[in-house]
């Protein structure tokens, strides 16, 4: 019994320890951001590997999610005779929730895990140590550019996701199911507010971008430098990112949309 409590206590202390390490790490990254802006080439390279290469999965997923929303939305609304409001359903679902959340989950799975693996591997092959001994701060050179790239890329990707989702919903609703073209767009425009809905969605994706990239980069840097350690770190990135995204989504939604 005592053993159980002791183990639990040790686990708890470990959690706090990691939390503290993660925040100190974040502080160092933020301190290193000015030097990244001075070496723009590093940032561009990372945005290519983190952002651009995630584009395909975002586009395809966004399109399909939008189309499914169109289908399901139609099926439900048609019972109320309100199928002409399909545009509103598709747009609000995407812009407020699905765009930021699903894009972030996909990003965590694709780009986040790749970042963790890359950094973890660099750690285990002593490249980070080597850089330190060459008087190059690995946080400024390796970590900060990747962090900034993820932070900038995710809001862009989430917006692209929402936009193409709306297009997908349009194809299904108007193209296949016969919703009126004019009604689709006009109802949507009447009900979707730029600052309340779209900007709030963008704010969400900015928050998610910050948190997901931070987790990915930290798990890589903190990984045990063996192959098993790196693989566990990669798994942790995806799981912790997912939990963080969904938890933050609830908090942000309550803050932003709770009063309406």
């Amino acid at each position: 019994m005592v053993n159980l409590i002791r183990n639990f206590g040790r686990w708890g202390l470990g959690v706090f320890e990691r939390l503290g390490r993660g925040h100190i790490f974040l502080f160092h990254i933020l301190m290193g951001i000015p030097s990244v802006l001075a070496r723009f080439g590093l940032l561009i390279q990372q945005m290519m590997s983190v952002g651009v290469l995630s584009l395909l999965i975002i586009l395809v997923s966004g399109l399909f999610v939008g189309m499914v929303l169109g289908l399901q939305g139609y099926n439900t609304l048609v019972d109320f005779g309100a199928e002409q409001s399909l545009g509103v359903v598709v747009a609000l679902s995407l812009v407020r929730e699905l765009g930021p959340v699903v894009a972030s989950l996909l990003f965590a799975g694709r780009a986040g895990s790749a970042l963790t693996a890359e950094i973890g591997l660099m750690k285990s092959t002593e490249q980070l140590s080597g850089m330190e001994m060459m008087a190059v701060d690995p946080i400024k050179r390796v970590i900060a550019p990747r962090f900034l790239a993820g932070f900038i890329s995710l809001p862009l990707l989430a917006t692209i996701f929402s936009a193409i989702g709306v297009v997908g919903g349009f194809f299904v609703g108007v193209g296949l199911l016969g919703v009126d073209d004019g009604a689709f767009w006009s109802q949507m425009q009447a009900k979707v507010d730029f600052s309340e809905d779209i900007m709030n969605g963008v704010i969400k994706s900015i928050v998610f971008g910050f948190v997901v990239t931070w987790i990915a980069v930290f798990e890589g840097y903190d990984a045990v430098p063996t192959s098993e350690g790196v693989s566990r770190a990669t798994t942790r990135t995806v799981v912790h990112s997912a939990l963080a995204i969904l938890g933050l989504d609830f908090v942000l939604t309550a803050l932003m949309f709770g009063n309406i």
Partner: protein
Amino acid sequence: MHNSKTVEIIVGLFVALGLAALFMLAMKVSNLSTYSGDSGYVVTARFENIGGLKVRSPVTVAGVRVGRVSNIGFDNTTYEAVVSMSISGDYNTLPTDTSASIFTAGLLGEQYIALEPGGDEKYLQQGGEVRLTQSAIVLEQVIGQFLYSQAEGGGDK
């Protein structure tokens, strides 16, 4: 490090794509295009009952949306609801004897304020008040009145 020019161009396109998506959402999906900016003015109106009227509910004239409800308050002395309406600057020729009524859009729809222009030569300005108001129709009261009048009429026969 190889062909960094290409990489830069691609990343630039990526960022442009993201911004274009945002632009598309703003224009085609939201009501940004009907936003006329901040040349609007705010007038108030008092109602006995605002029903289901909410902040951001539309304010219309002849069915055209000219603004929205910006604030809903309560007067502790007269026990009336004080509704503030933010009206776009394009529509600044509303006479001071305009009346405001709370209607319902469709059967299950949301409630909105419909303004009927009067005939006065002076126009509503910032901070003005619409004096003629008609409160929202509360369904229970209507039914109650109907039953009451039925009972009365039936009793007379």
